[in-house]
């Protein structure tokens, strides 16, 4: 199961990196979304995929009786999903605003902050 998941994660990363290398912001956003899911899946796999019981302690006991599934990676993923989702939402709005203001979805033409035809530095001194 881990091996299959590893290949799936590899596929996610490949697709994400391919999309992130694009000039189009929409493709880059998709890449960000996919790489986020790839990382979540990676943390899930790294916590070992086991067919154990959920970490619930029976009443009257202090500790689980048998081997339990590792709950920590799930807590980490939950946090990462929330953070990743909010940042993705922000980037989405930011990209839309940039598209409206700069009239550009292409990073090659987004040169307001770094003008392409920027003048040479003064040669005095």
């Amino acid at each position: 199961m881990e091996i299959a998941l590893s290949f799936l994660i590899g596929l996610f990363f490949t697709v994400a990196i391919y999309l992130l290398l694009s000039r189009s912001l929409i493709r880059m956003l998709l890449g960000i979304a996919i790489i986020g899911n790839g990382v979540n899946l990676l943390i899930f796999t790294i916590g070992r995929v086991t067919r154990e019981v959920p970490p619930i302690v029976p009443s009257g006991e202090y500790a689980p009786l048998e081997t339990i599934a590792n709950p920590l990676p799930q807590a980490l993923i939950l946090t990462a999903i929330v953070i990743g989702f909010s940042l993705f939402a922000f980037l989405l709005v930011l990209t839309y605003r940039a598209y409206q203001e700069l009239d550009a979805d292409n990073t090659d033409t987004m040169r307001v902050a770094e003008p392409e035809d920027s003048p040479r530095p003064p040669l005095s001194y």
Partner: protein
Amino acid sequence: MAGSASTPKNLDLPPAMIEGVTSVADWVIVWPIALPMLGAAVLLMARKRPEWQAPFAFVILLATLVANFMLYMRVQAEGPLTMTMGNWLPPYGISLTADALSALFSLVSAFILLIVVLFVQSEVETRENKYGYHSLLLLLLTGVSGGFLTGDLFNLYVWFEVMLIASFGLLIIGGRKIQLDGAVKYGFLNFLATTFFLIAIGFLYGLVGTLNMADIALKAPQVESGAIYAVAALFFLAFAMKGAAFPLNAWLPASYHAPDPAVSAVFAGLLTKVGVYALVRTHLLLIPQSHAQLQLVMEVVAAFTLILAPLGAMAQTNARRALGFLVVGGIGAMLAGLAIGSPTGVFGLAAYAVNSMLVMTALYLVVGLVERMGGTSDIRKLGGLYRANSWLSILFIVLVFAVAGLPPFLGFWPKMILVQAGVEVGNFWLVAFILLNSILTSIAGTRLWAHIFWRDGREGANSEQINERIRPLTTRAKVWGLLPAGALVAFIVVAGLVPQPLFKAGATAAFAIYEPAEYVGSVFGSLSAAEE
């Protein structure tokens, strides 16, 4: 959670929980994070009252500074301090751990933000107050202090994201085209860097099965697998990107000149240094065996960053973009300290980071005032500011000397320690690069000064011609702009003339990194106390 009504009476708590109440004195580690966070929340609720924003933020920051100072004195006196949240025993709970390095950086960050909030009063419109300018500034400090003071790797990731989202907000407040453009590049690349950090955390958790930094410091050196080096390399990639080291520095000069000068100043002072701090933590404390493996990479990255950044600064016509490159140059010097990796090297790194935080913030503030007088940051159109405001020109040239590392200014001492560290380990070519960086930085800085202040008018003007674009500073700009910037520069000058406190702070910080036993002991000390 502890002591709630649902806890069964027969439960055996000592193996998992700290019993008894945390002493009030230990709470000092929480305040540097909690105060700005609470302040940000309150200011957000009071967004309809713009006149409250600035005074409240100032009071909160003053309290944060006091809390940071108390924490710093405590750590200096008693060594690392730990408090684990929710009274769980480490490594189950999330620990906050302050050692000399983190307490020092957190203290300087709070000081810088206090100065900047004063400076902000010279320019912020009521409209921007409404959109939460001051709360975002406080939230940024929360993220930075949290990143410095946390003792848990995943928690560090969370603080990085808090910092990131606050900096997004600050970057686009005002919504000018240049800000949106800068924010897109800043946003994508920084988000990607934290994603790499998260990947590294995942792998490290898979290898050592813990996220508590002290616990990792105990377990990671025992890991036989070579995979630990891949994890270390991923950490290096992520934090070098955060710290804007060459060749991952492109986002910094692309975005730092876009927002308000005050926001640029905070970014230059605080953000990249958290990346450097995280590099020191991960490579010297958590996975110390990786340093030897990655040393060559670190040296090469440091050398390129040291040289290419000031060269980039020389090629700019926009003064604030040029400063962005100088920030990157400082990162190169810190990476050189990390690459050397001896206690003296980390001593130099810590001292240089403090210097860079103070000096780069002050430089951006001064250039902010220059922009207000000249109406532009294009150095071809500036000129003649020496005649218009000689005080400003003195502040700027002092800062240029400090950033280049000329004695007797503040920047000289950390560079001297770094050179000494390089000579000690016999790494002479890195020493040569550090010295070359000083020469190039002083050329780049004095070129800026000569163009903005020294010559009489804009490019191509006669020497007698007066630059008619220049407007004098308003009284408000003088009181709230020139005074805080001047105070910061005065502090830098005094700290340069009396460097002993900086030496002491840097040396204890370096000592703390090379004494992991103390760091680990402060986290698990409560454990052994509970067992007795």
